[in-house]
């Protein structure tokens, strides 16, 4: 569940032609030329990154150092114990595991179910296809707030409230994923599929052996988008999960914030730990993140 599914980017087909603004970069290696733009960009980049630096610095301070004005810009010594303290005081490992389970399940579910449905909508002519596809698109336009109360009641009737199932089941298929993969599959040359069909391959065989292997970038983009949505989702877990043991990292962090509002150093250490997985993924899969953002609006 995410409330950013409102409007898809200009067109998902265009999005695959979008350039990834990171790849063409680094200038040709030649003599060093100073650019005046550094004088503009350096302070700007510093302002953007300052909040994160300040978070990390504070996470290594003692409580007394955080309660000083003017602020202590460099901690006297690095308080690694803040991190241990956070792990002792809150079931962080549990929250992390829960989030990982939920995220993995929804990413896997979306990759599989959206591939199947996307392929059907792209390539198979079946009764009711156009109407059903319009229905799927229509749900894409509706903000989360409109559906949240009835969805809550449905999930409650399924007996999933306060379980990880409440976070997984409704998100196993996002309309966005179906739409995106359908658009992508339609850009693939159909001749390959026709040839396989003549050779007697089944539809399932064609999808798994021919179409999906050609769809690596689209699948990776979808995975990254779904990962970030689920990992950072807040409103839906807030509404459906109550026991600390079933909380996700974001929800847990919010309750931790409520309980330790004055222990800024611990709060920042908890924050750093919650960000590490996403940041690692961001740096490893940067091009898919960028493409995901350019395609859709990844931000929750």
């Amino acid at each position, binding site marked *: 569940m995410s409330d950013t599914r409102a409007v898809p980017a200009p067109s998902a087909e265009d999005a695959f032609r979008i350039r990834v603004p990171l790849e063409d970069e680094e200038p040709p290696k030649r003599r060093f030329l100073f650019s005046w733009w550094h004088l*503009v960009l350096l302070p700007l980049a510093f302002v953007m990154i300052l909040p994160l630096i300040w978070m990390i610095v504070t996470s290594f301070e003692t409580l007394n150092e955080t309660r000083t004005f003017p602020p202590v810009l460099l901690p006297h010594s690095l308080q690694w114990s803040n991190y241990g303290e956070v792990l002792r005081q809150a079931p962080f490992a549990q929250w992390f595991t829960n989030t990982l389970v939920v995220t993995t399940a929804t990413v896997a579910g979306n990759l599989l179910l959206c591939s199947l449905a996307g392929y059907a909508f792209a390539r198979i002519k079946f009764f009711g296809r156009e109407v059903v596809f319009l*229905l799927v698109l229509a749900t894409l336009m509706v903000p989360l707030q409109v559906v949240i109360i009835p969805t809550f009641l*449905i999930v409650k009737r399924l007996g999933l409230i306060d379980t990880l199932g409440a976070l997984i089941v409704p998100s196993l298929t996002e309309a966005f994923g179906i739409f995106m993969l359908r658009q992508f599959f339609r850009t693939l040359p159909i001749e390959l599929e026709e040839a396989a069909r003549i050779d007697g391959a089944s539809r399932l065989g064609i999808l798994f052996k021919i179409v999906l292997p050609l769809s690596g970038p689209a699948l990776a983009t979808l995975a990254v988008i779904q990962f970030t949505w689920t990992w950072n989702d807040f409103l839906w877990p807030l509404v459906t999960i109550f026991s600390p043991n079933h909380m996700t990292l974001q929800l847990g962090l919010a309750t931790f914030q409520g309980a330790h509002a004055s222990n800024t150093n611990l709060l920042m250490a908890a924050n750093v730990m919650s960000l590490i997985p996403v940041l690692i993924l961001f740096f490893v899969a*940067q091009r898919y993140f960028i493409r995901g953002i350019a395609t859709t609006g990844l931000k929750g």
Partner: protein
Amino acid sequence: MASVRKALQSDHAAGWAFAGPAVFLIVLFGVVPIIWSAVMSFQRTNLLNAPEWVGLANYKALSKDPLFKQSVEHSVIYTALFVPISITGGLLAAVALNRKIRGIRWYRTAFFVPVVVSTIATVIIFLWLFDPTYGIVNWILSRLGFGPVGFLESSSGALYSIVGLTVWGWIGFDVIIYLAALQGIPGELLEAAEIDGAGHWGILRNITVPLLGPVTLFLVIYSSINALQLFDEVYLATRGGPGTATYVVVFYLYDLAFNQGVAGYAAAIAYVLFIAILVLTVVQLVIGKRLVHYSS
């Protein structure tokens, strides 16, 4: 028998077998709630007892509810600030970042990283940056001869502080979209303009900005939709406070549905918001069509 086999092998069966599971989930968790929510908006219900049909009473009550009116005002102010600030900022940053100089990757990454930082993490960081007593922003302001400012803890500043922290989190999104679009502008076009004697500013105003029209229209629509749905930041940073200074529409809706149990009334608010967003989007598209020129 043969006809059964034929039906099984037909495209209809295959199509539904492939799309079925996904469509089932979309219907159950997407289509059904949309309709249910509409029905609910005509009922008095608290999620526990049997609902009672009240016709348009929820919508009528809405028009006289002072807190709803206030929430709408806050949402409008927030949107009117957030959308132009983040888009203009994103455009200027993208133009600055669209050049091949040493270290450009790192500059870009500095703008991109906040996009993947979760809302709760962003809020925790900014509550600390904006801390009225120990915050580093107040320290910087005091060095410049200003302050101290209450930020999120003052009724006059809280909404603007939320604008600030959401712009930080979102601007990278606009930068990425603009950078992708800027790299699609043919270099010859800009060179030609330069040869004709256009300055940096002239090129930006007369060539770049018009060419970015379609992308800007998309960003305006997309950002407005998201701005009107603001919730997480308000819930986490201020709980609508101080007092009701940061009550926005979705926060009020959440408060009604899940704290006060007035689900029917909340559903009416959700539908009003949905329709308002649709109308705004259509208006933006119509105005955009007049202003924006698509190259063939």
